[in-house]
């Protein structure tokens, strides 16, 4: 194992940096810019059973040190992902990829996971119970410990792949949700998804986004995400993937010290398409500065 490598549910990553779902499509836009194999892995766009157009535009708004999105899980559906996206990805990415799964019922999560379970390119299933921009699904599973546990155990029953449950910050007590998922058999947790937020257009006096509310991401949420990663990683014994506003190798080091076993990078990819390779390139210098030999030494270091 070299300096930057980490292990995630028994699969080794050459480095801990993972582009987050929804900011990286199915990889192709970035494959045109750099070799995706420099990444630890990446998390594909949230996929549902049927194709979804998502919300009407405007779907995006600026925020202080960040952005709001209300894309609403636009995706071509799981069958198109398996038929078109995965074969296209195979030509440019030679590592296991994270398949991010969304749904509007336990049955839908199960069916999407069952179909993706058969795909050898998929290393992990990331079950998104935290999308704030759809109604009657998504986040409603992530805000109640019993519902989160129900999705987790149902999905675990149909796959041999490690299951990562992606948690919402839009809760009073994220630790109780995290524990419920761990108890239900989750192999790892990723947190945080976006924070439910609002912007108003002063000219029209109406919300900017057609969905009215959207999810806040970017540096604005970093300290909030860090706090939640810190709290959750203390409370559970499964790996926690830290995300939320990470934009530099220093931010990634903070996430690791807070207890993250790996780090996802989201909104930063949209502002700077080369954000992830730059972070990876800067990690050794940050390790040097911290007097650490390996990334693994940092994990949980802040817990004392």
């Amino acid at each position, binding site marked *: 194992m070299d300096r930057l490598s980490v292990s995630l549910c028994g699969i080794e990553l050459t480095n801990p940096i993972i582009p987050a779902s929804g900011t990286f499509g199915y990889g192709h836009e970035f494959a045109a810019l750099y070799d995706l194999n420099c990444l630890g892995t990446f998390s594909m766009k949230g996929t549902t059973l049927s194709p979804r157009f998502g919300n009407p535009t405007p779907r995006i708004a600026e925020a202080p040190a960040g952005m709001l*999105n209300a894309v609403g899980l636009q995706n071509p559906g799981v069958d198109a992902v398996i038929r078109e996206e995965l074969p296209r990805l195979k030509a440019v990415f030679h590592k296991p990829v994270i398949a991010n799964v969304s749904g509007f019922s336990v049955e839908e999560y199960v069916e999407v996971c069952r179909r993706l379970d058969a795909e050898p390119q998929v290393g992990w299933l990331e079950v998104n119970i935290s999308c704030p921009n759809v109604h009657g699904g998504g986040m409603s599973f992530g805000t109640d410990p019993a519902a989160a546990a129900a999705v987790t155990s149902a999905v675990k029953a149909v796959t041999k792949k490690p299951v990562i449950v992606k948690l919402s910050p839009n809760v009073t007590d994220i630790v109780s949700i995290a524990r419920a998922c761990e108890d239900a058999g989750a192999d790892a947790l990723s947190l945080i998804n976006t924070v439910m937020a609002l912007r108003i257009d002063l000219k029209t006096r109406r919300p900017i986004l057609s969905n009215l509310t959207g999810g806040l991401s970017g540096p604005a949420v970093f300290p909030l995400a860090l706090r939640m990663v810190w709290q959750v990683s203390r409370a559970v014994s499964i790996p926690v993937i830290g995300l939320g506003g990470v934009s530099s190798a220093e931010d990634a080091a903070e996430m690791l010290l807070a207890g993250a076993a790996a780090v996802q990078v989201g909104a930063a990819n949209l502002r700077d398409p080369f954000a992830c390779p730059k972070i990876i390139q800067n990690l050794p210098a940050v390790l040097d500065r911290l007097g650490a030999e390996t990334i693994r030494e940092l994990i949980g270091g802040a817990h004392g």
Partner: protein
Amino acid sequence: MKQGMFTIAENSPLTERFSLLRLEGDCAAIERPGQFVALMLPGLFLRRPFSVCDWDGKGFQLLIEQVGKGTELLRSLPVGQELDVLTGLGKGFDLSRAGERPLLIGGGSGVSPLLALARRLAERGVRPHVILGFPSREDLLLLDDFFRLGLAPTVTTDDGSFGIRGRVTEAMDIPHTFFYACGPLPMLRAVCEKSPAPGEVSLDARMGCGFGACMGCTIQTAKGPRRVCKDGPVFEKEDLLWTD
């Protein structure tokens, strides 16, 4: 697409609402008129997308309309300031479809990409007929630039203070093989309905990334969901559903 550092070489007001911004740096990624660039601006998270008005070996020009915080900030930036820019974004206009007598129709800020288009068509020996629409005489943009290409645009103004009174569609009764249009959505729709010819229109959109990753600017088209930033911003007339 390419990421690079560009230096502001000119930033001058043209009208009350518009200014001309020239940035110098490596323009190799700009291949077609109708493509756009995305500027990273100090203090703002999201990049701001702008249609390329014209470009040469040393840099490119943008027409900046004051619409919000980003464009306000941009107008205040001094010559010499460096900006991080993504260039060569989106699919531009398809010049091969022009035919012998293409029509170029621009409204307001939408006249911007038509200048580069007119120049490239002229270089290929094609003389387009140009129609430019503005609210009033004080709002005229780029007229001299089109004249310098040896073209004499037909101008319409809403209040009749210059050229033909009315909308650009009042000036479209002219035989054409193809049309290229850019401007506000109602104008584009009216142009598509009025012209019997095939054509391409360039759409504006509120974007997240500008390069196809975030799905922030998706529209429904006859061919299914399409990203304005990556699959457009130029679309074929027949593919647009005008649902918004």
